[in-house]
């Protein structure tokens, strides 16, 4: 098991190298000069050339990439061109904010999606099942940014019970304040995964409850709660866990939109502003961090299978 984990972690390296190289090349190919964008329309060509030299942007791309990579390996992720600060502490802080948001979103998605799926399966074709599945369809089809704006208007403006945007109330920063600020964005982010998880749980559960051993359990006179909770749920969870793992990838994408709508200072927002400013060091750093986290989440998902299904064993 340990060997498997180490192997998987080592395989991270080529993936990350590939991802960063790809992103670097894409950023190079995209038109737009960071020095010009940063100095604005009013700077003359000479200052732009000077800045390009200062930033090392006049070097061939492979020299720039090698320098950046060398720096990263030494723990120096460079300085953001646009924000004039060290990249690593900046994006680490941003990443932490996003991680909180995504954790809460995943928690909400599972917390509502799994029970909804189970209830729908157990009471298949009941009015409850139908209503739940219609809601799921709506949840899955709603664009995340639109939902975000609606949530802001309803809970922030009409009811006035939750903060509309940002991450802290001026002068009242604290854990509770942070949690309150996370409710609406994570709800917006959680809606689509919640819908998918509910559907997946339902279909997987339906399949399991028709198995022979379930009929046997029923014949033995087991209470429905025990049957579903102990026998069916665990067996139906494998595909659900896979989906949850995959949803983390979706969350990273949806996160960008949600952070934009809610001005939530996470890694997604940092990437968007970084890309618009052609801020190579910032974008590279952010992508590296996001890619690494995605690979790690996949690994955790794989390990979770082994926990849920004793038949799955790694590295033996």
């Amino acid at each position, binding site marked *: 098991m340990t060997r498997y984990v180490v192997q998987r972690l080592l395989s991270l390296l080529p993936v990350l190298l590939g991802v960063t190289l790809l992103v670097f090349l894409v950023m190079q190919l995209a038109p737009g000069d960071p020095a010009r964008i940063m100095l604005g329309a009013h*700077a003359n060509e000479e200052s732009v050339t*000077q*800045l390009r030299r200062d930033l090392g942007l006049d070097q061939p791309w492979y020299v720039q990439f090698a320098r950046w990579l060398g720096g990263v390996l030494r723990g120096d992720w460079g300085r953001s061109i646009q924000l*004039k600060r060290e990249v690593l502490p900046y994006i680490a802080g941003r990443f932490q904010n996003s991680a909180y948001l995504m954790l809460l979103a995943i928690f909400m998605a599972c917390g509502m999606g799994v029970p909804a799926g189970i209830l729908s399966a157990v009471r298949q074709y009941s009015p409850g099942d139908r209503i739940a599945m219609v809601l799921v369809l709506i949840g899955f089809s709603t664009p995340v940014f639109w939902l975000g704006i609606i949530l802001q208007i309803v809970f922030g403006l009409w009811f006035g019970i939750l903060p509309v*945007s940002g991450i802290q109330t001026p002068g009242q920063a604290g854990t509770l304040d942070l949690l309150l600020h996370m409710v609406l964005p994570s709800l917006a982010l959680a809606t689509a995964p919640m819908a998918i998880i509910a559907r997946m749980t339902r279909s997987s559960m339906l399949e399991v409850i028709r198995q022979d051993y379930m009929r046997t359990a029923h014949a033995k006179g087991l209470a429905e709660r025990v049957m579903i909770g102990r026998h069916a749920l665990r067996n139906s969870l494998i595909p659900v866990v896979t989906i949850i793992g995959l949803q983390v990838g979706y969350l990273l994408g949806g996160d960008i939109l949600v952070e*934009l709508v809610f001005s939530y200072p996470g890694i997604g927002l940092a990437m968007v502003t970084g890309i618009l400013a052609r801020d190579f060091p910032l974008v590279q750093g952010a992508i590296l961090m996001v890619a690494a986290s995605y690979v790690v989440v996949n690994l955790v998902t794989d390990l979770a299978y082994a926990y849920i299904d004793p038949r799955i064993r790694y590295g033996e």
Partner: protein
Amino acid sequence: MVLRQKLFSVMMLAGLCLALGGVPAVRPALAQAPQDGGTIVVGLQAEPATLDPPQLSDYNTARAVYNMYDGLLKFKDESTEVQPGLAESWEISTDGLVYTLHLRQGVKFHDGTPFNAEAVKFNLERQFDVNHPYHNTGDFAYADFTWGSVKQVDVVDDHTVKITLKNVLAPFISHLAMHPAFMVSPEAIKKYGRDISTHPVGTGPYRFVSWTPGAEVVEEQNPDYWGTPAHVDKLIFRPIIEDQARLTELQAGGINFMVNIPPDDLAGLKSDPRFTVVEQTGMHTWWVYLNTMKEPLKDVRVRQALSYAVNKKAIVDNILKETGVLAINPMPPVVWSYTDQVERYDYNPEKAKQLLAEAGYPNGFPCVFWTPESGSGMQMPVLMSTAIQADLKLVGVDCQIKTFEWGAFLEQGVVPPDKKPEWDLMAFSWIGDNGDPDNHLYILLSGDQWPPNGFNCGYYKNDQVDELLRQGRTTLDRAKRTEIYQQAQKLIVQDAPWILVDHETQIVVMDQHIKNFKLHPTGPFRFADVWIEQ
């Protein structure tokens, strides 16, 4: 003199009231004295990039920075005329090359170190002298623009500094009021190095408290300010990127001061008693460059025809909805020497067709029209360009619109003539920096300011205009300069090198209890005299 003016105003007001058939009720607000205390929470469009003034190059940053600093000179309220700042008085030598500044005494930076002539020399040289030991503590976007003509800075005594120029530059006096002339504590720069960007230390009415990245910049009133201390206790600047979210925050009370109102929401906010809307036409112009190097736009009749063909007023009324005013001159009305005595190109498709026929294009011609998707000062570029495209189509000019992301647009659209840009028409905008006519006319329309030198992107050239613009920047006498620039404006508009559309109105919406706020044409928010009704 002042008293007489006041008396006259009172009499005029009284006369007006009588004429309208009544006497106004005395409103308590008028009688109120400023109150101290409270917090202003400003919703910005983006996070400030830096809090070091010489490094800033955008409005959001300028707004977060402004109140923590003082410039050597200061723009007067609601005008771009200069008045004393950290320099109490100044003299300009008769040859226009030496500026002697007499500095205010007893001023201290927020870190307690004294402000003096050495500090001025340090601040200026840090920006333009590449060999200065602290030059590498920042990237100075405006160094060349502001200090490019400075030969040397000399300390005469502790409170006198002498700036010598390489060549006469009339607008230089305005540069002393711009953000690169905001004084930063030299000791703080030595202490923080590049991190001065996040540790601002100035002399202004507010001082820095904290900056939580992505969340807020907090500033508090400086009780030791050399001038009258500010009334409001705290300023908080919050980046809220989406216009709609910013508006919802304002309505929900998360902020009490916001910029960039979506045009569709303006009318609603104006009629909402909870808020006050403050407007001022800024130093902005939005226009379409015509590539004067290409056929058929070489022909002045064709260019004039295009100006007649576009219904500019409809764009201002229906798309911008009171967030801009119709432009008839490349220079915004707020800049001195502006004249409306120029050729007018009011919407007239018949005249456009006639001019096109005279020029040999009775059936119009095809063309390529570049426009960015968004960008600094570009308002609603795609919508506006589409309206222009539709108008031009009516006179037979068939434009193909190509849209670009802002960074790509600047790189590929703003190019020297030998690169032969693909576009015939290109949407653009400009926000003036120093309130001098030179900053609009010379850099955008002089024949020696084709890219990469400047932003005469349509390669317009008129020798007579060039000569006037050269004279304008080397003549010190204001009256003579006014005459020169007015003549230049007439000639330029006659040549119709651009399709002029609008000057954007700066608009802020704030809580109705915030009093005495005035917008400044240069864009930053001045909170020193603002107070909140408790």
